């Protein structure tokens, strides 16, 4: 059926190749976004969160750690948009600063697991043989474990703190990237240009650095973007249980945990931080989906 209908890349690709003037690129972006408004929403959310992280001191009306015993557990009002907590701290400011802890943790987790995982995976793929098999078996075992429990156990073993929980989640997520990177490496290894460079005597590290890595990165980046959303959730969950950020850090999961005891009468305490988690994760997932859809050649033509 696809032979009958001309697919987009033929026409649009030609358009992109001809003149990449700024206005043309913007028009193309606009065209893409019209077909997928949800992705734009996601991008807008991420932009908002980034602003929150960078400009926190500017945006937050109060000092998030400032205690005020006369203003305890106040409902949302014009003065305190999200209300106050049990020691009178402004929740709106705490939520804004919380972005730093929550998103920063998520970003670090993905960065660590991606870097380590890709390195191990590519290495395993290039070296091959028994080393490769051994590494993959190890990854299989780790993957067979329920991730959250492992993360919890690790975090408990290392001591409850934001850093330790970050480390635990990062370690647990490494095998996924190892698998992905290895798969990419294996298929790239068979490509002619890699074989050619081997005939010229290139060392495995050279091949890895210059041939494999640059070409394998794109699906890995997509995976990382999609992961971001999930990791935000796990980090918050660990904090909620008490294994992550410790008070008085205003991490979102910890805030929900604190707010839980006051839920029935002071609903605002737990609601807003949780909403922040939800919206941030949604933003990451929407953008990740959008990127994946854009890169999927089948969907492009429709």
């Amino acid at each position, binding site marked *: *059926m696809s*032979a009958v*209908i*001309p697919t987009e890349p033929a*026409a*649009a690709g*030609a*358009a992109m190749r001809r003149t990449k003037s700024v206005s043309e690129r913007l028009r*193309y972006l606009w*065209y893409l976004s019209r077909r997928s408004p949800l992705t734009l929403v996601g991008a807008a959310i991420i932009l908002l969160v980034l602003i929150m992280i960078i400009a926190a001191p500017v945006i937050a009306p109060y000092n998030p750690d400032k205690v005020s015993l006369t203003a305890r557990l106040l409902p949302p009002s014009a003065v305190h948009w999200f209300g106050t907590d049990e020691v009178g701290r402004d929740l709106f400011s705490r939520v804004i600063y919380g972005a730093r802890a929550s998103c920063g943790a998520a970003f670090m987790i993905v960065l660590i697991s991606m870097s380590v995982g890709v390195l191990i995976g590519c290495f395993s793929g290039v070296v091959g043989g028994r080393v490769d098999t051994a590494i993959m078996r190890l990854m299989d075992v780790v993957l067979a474990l329920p991730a959250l429990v492992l993360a919890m156990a690790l975090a408990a073993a290392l001591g409850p703190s934001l850093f330790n929980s970050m480390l635990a989640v990062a370690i647990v997520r490494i095998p996924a990237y190892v698998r992905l990177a290895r798969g990419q490496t294996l298929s790239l290894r068979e490509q002619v240009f890699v074989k050619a460079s081997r005939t010229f005597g290139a060392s495995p590290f050279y091949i890895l650095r210059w041939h494999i890595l640059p070409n394998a990165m794109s699906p890995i980046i997509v995976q990382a973007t999609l992961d971001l959303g999930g990791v935000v959730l796990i980090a918050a969950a660990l904090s909620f249980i008490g294994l992550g950020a410790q008070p008085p850090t205003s991490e979102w999961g910890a805030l929900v945990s604190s707010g839980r005891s006051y839920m029935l009468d002071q609903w605002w305490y737990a609601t807003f931080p949780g909403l922040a988690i939800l919206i941030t994760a949604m933003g990451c997932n929407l953008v990740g989906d959008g990127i994946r859809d854009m890169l999927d050649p089948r969907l492009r033509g429709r």
Partner: protein
Amino acid sequence: MMTGATELRGQALAIHNLSLEFPTFSGAIKALDNVSINVGKAEIVGIVGESGCGKSVTTMAATGLLPRGRYRITGGSVRLFGHSTLAMDDSQLQDVRGKVFSTIFQEPMNALNPTIRIGKQLTDVIMRHEETSLPDARRIARDILADMLIGEPERVMKLYPFELSGGMRQRVLIAMAFSCNPGLIIADEPTTALDVTVQAVILRLIQNRARRTGTSVIFISHNVAVVSQLCDRLYVMYAGRIVEHGATRTVLEAPQHPYTQALLRCLPERVAPKQELEAIPGAVPNLLHPPAGCYFQPRCKEAVDLCRSQSPPLAGADSQQVACWRRGVAPELSEQGSRK
């Protein structure tokens, strides 16, 4: 199901001046331009042309099988046994498809559902259109498989598609197409994906069954040899337009349009030994920004100024019509006037 107003000499299919485009980011691709095709009852008509010339698009658009929203009809009409298919919605079309007309497609390998047995796929179609019971439907299916020269139809009906060869699958599909006795069969390159030896068998099957039951057939192919044996009349398409049309013998033995002539000269079987194979210089026009005037003109040895400015209409006797200024069609006689 036939409407009382069966005008036009009781045509099976009457496509009249159909124009269609595919909107894309960079503009609209003019896939069809004023295509008119008529198929009478019990006629076998062929549509030939290169890949991408619009042969499939024509019939798919006429039967509403193009993906919705991806195309736009900019003019013309289609009447299928009197039904105006362009105006019908999907559920009306579903009533008509398979019963009034059927389609056979090119690639049989994946055209049958891999998780459903052959027998059930056939009886599903039969029971959809005919008021029969399951045992009767099975009987009909068995008969039609036998008609397609499939040995042991009982056993085949219990099989899954992956257990059959490509040729067998295509025979099952043809059986399915004929199973509800439609008035028209659209065969879109049904043998292109098959071995040469199987091709001949399949073509015979279609021809025999069609002649026996008085079914009209539209046979689409880029293989001139195949249509020459099968079809009563021939349409030659180029870049979304009909350039020549007439009785098969006439068109093949005395082609009028420069494109048809060039096409026939390309065929290896028509070239004497030791003679050079000819290719048509140039390339198919970009339908995103089609040339003014005749589409073939950039590659035509006989092109003149008129060809570059005005597009020639189809004109001529009933037995053979050509769209070419150099074949004696005067501009004043054309009712359609000039077109960009």
